């Protein structure tokens, strides 16, 4: 019998806050479905990642779940009931590309959006949470990429939502700004909010998400906790060696060999044998890297294609 606190965490963890059931979206005139029977369930209070390459149907899927776009078929449930107009009051959205009204300061943008909801979070609290203090009275147009994304996140939080949708929130940010944004997402998740995030950065998904759904061609091809998914599919490591240093043949190596981004990757659980085979073939090992398997490898494993192909 778990302790009461753990039981409570477990119950909350198991409650599904948002569920997509067999979503299909076909745009007029298109020959294939942009979303092709996508189903997933987002447990309460976690950061859930929708992961996949550009064009996989992530944005279309998340927009259907936000209630912004209507599916050709299928339905979206919020706490077990189909989403309706009042879902807007319970959800917060950060779109992939959004401009803010011209000539308004950050404070005025937050005031505007706050006034559109029946209840809103005080601006001082939002500014503190999202660290907007230094540019709260600056024209929203004159912000850096990272500052802008923090403002857009504050806008998404202005109505104190239960569910927050973040569509590719760190695309185009420099590494430092990206890490700052990740800290912010962790902080918000720590407040018990449920977050649905799309990204094509596997590292981001691994860093932030308690659970991920890997999407390809409008369908979920794998779903679960990142580490568990990797464990289920892999029991080895990836050995990476620059292409020009690779002198062996694929057949001589104990593992799957692929070529990616100018390097040869050998996915194996027999490190010693692989290294020995490479040495025997005369490959210099000075630039050889051994790393654990990543979500990117998993995508490759499942689809036969790289994320950036």
């Amino acid at each position, binding site marked *: 019998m778990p302790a009461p606190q753990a039981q409570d965490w477990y119950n909350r963890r198991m409650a599904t806050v948002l569920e997509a059931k067999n979503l299909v979206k076909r745009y007029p005139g298109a020959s294939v479905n942009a979303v092709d029977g996508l189903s997933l369930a987002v447990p309460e209070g976690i950061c859930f990642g929708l992961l996949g390459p550009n064009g996989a149907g992530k944005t279309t899927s998340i927009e259907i779940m*936000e209630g*912004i776009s209507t599916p050709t078929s299928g339905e979206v449930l919020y706490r077990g009931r189909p989403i309706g*107009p009042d879902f*807007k*009051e319970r*959800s917060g*959205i950060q*779109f992939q*590309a*959004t*401009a*803010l*009204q*011209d*000539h*308004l300061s950050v404070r*005025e943008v937050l*005031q*505007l*959006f706050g*006034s*559109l*909801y*029946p209840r809103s979070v005080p601006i001082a609290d939002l500014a503190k949470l999202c660290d907007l203090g230094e540019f709260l009275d600056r024209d929203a147009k004159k912000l850096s990429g990272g500052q802008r994304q923090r403002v857009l996140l504050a*806008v998404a939080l202005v*109505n104190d939502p239960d569910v927050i949708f973040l569509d590719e929130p760190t695309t185009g940010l420099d590494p430092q700004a990206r890490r700052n944004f990740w800290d912010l997402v962790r902080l918000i998740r720590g407040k018990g909010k449920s977050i649905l995030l799309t990204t094509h950065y596997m590292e981001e998904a691994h860093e932030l998400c308690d659970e991920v759904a890997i999407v390809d061609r409008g369908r979920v091809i794998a779903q679960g906790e990142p580490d568990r998914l990797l464990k289920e599919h892999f029991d080895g490591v990836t050995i990476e060696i620059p292409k020009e240093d690779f002198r062996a043949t694929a057949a001589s190596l104990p593992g799957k060999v692929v070529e990616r981004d100018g390097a040869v990757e050998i996915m194996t659980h027999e490190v010693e044998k692989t290294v020995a085979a490479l040495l025997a073939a005369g490959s210099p090992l000075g630039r050889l890297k051994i790393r654990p398997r990543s979500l990117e490898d998993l995508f490759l494993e499942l689809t036969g294609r790289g994320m950036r192909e």
Partner: protein
Amino acid sequence: MISPRRFAAVFVARSKEFLRDRGALAWNLAFPLIAVFGMAFIFSGDHQEVFKIGVVGEAAALPAGLHATKYVTFVDFPDEEAGQQRLRRHQIDLLVAPGKPLHYWINETSPKGYLVEKVLLGTDAAVPAPIRGVVTGRPIRYVDWLVSGLLAMNMMFSALFGVGYSIVRYRKNGVLKRLKATPLSAFEFLAAQVASRLCLILAVFAIVYHGADFFLHFQRLGSMLDLYIIFTIGATCLISLGLLIAARANSEELAGGLLNLLSWPMMFLSGVWFSLEGAPKPIRLFANAFPLTHVIDAARAVMTEGATLGQVADHLYFLIGMTVSCLLVGAWSFRWE
């Protein structure tokens, strides 16, 4: 149902945005002021090179000596009232009714009338002694006639482009999509855009009209309140037309093209610069389909003829009908994305 809180929030945001866009604001004020003062300056000289005497009936019936006077043009009027009306506004310098004795009227505030009277009394028309009548009235200058058209034209550009273009820009850059994700309704959003732009247009109208009036002393025969009512109805109609264009267009180029397609013919064929009274009938019919024609005709009738709202009701009905149609179709077909 419209939420006053949400309506007010969008109204305030939109108005702030405009007032802080210094370039657009300056242009909205500067353009009509430059146009009004420019026209007043260009047409300030007296280009009437001859004296004009109005004749009740036919000029041929006048005493031969008067009729033969050089540098005088005679204009026939069907009756005394029509002639006096023109005389009051200095459009003719003197009005004569042939007969024995001859009857004539002058406008005592007109210097040219004074001179023409001296001329008349120096001809055979002076015997037997003619009967002198007097009318009063300030002249209607070209600028008095033009100001309604210029202000209406400025209002048209502000309404069509200020609303239509900005909504399309918002659609394209995702601002509308972000607003769609909130409880704000399309109707609340559109109503706030209309209200914000209407206040702005009326403020610009007031500043430009009264500012220019301070220096140019417009001759306005009708009521100022009527003029405000006509401009309010006209601005609402033109803003609604802008909304209709913006309801679905998703590129600024398309919206810009459509707005130009509408505004340019209106600029030239709605009687801003010249009267369409003498234009061919097909052109007049075509021009009557434009809301701007009706705004200008109504405003000018109040300004230069002292018309009341009742006398220009047909124009106002047209504008109100068009407003309702544009708003209904615009709200029905509006797309956030």
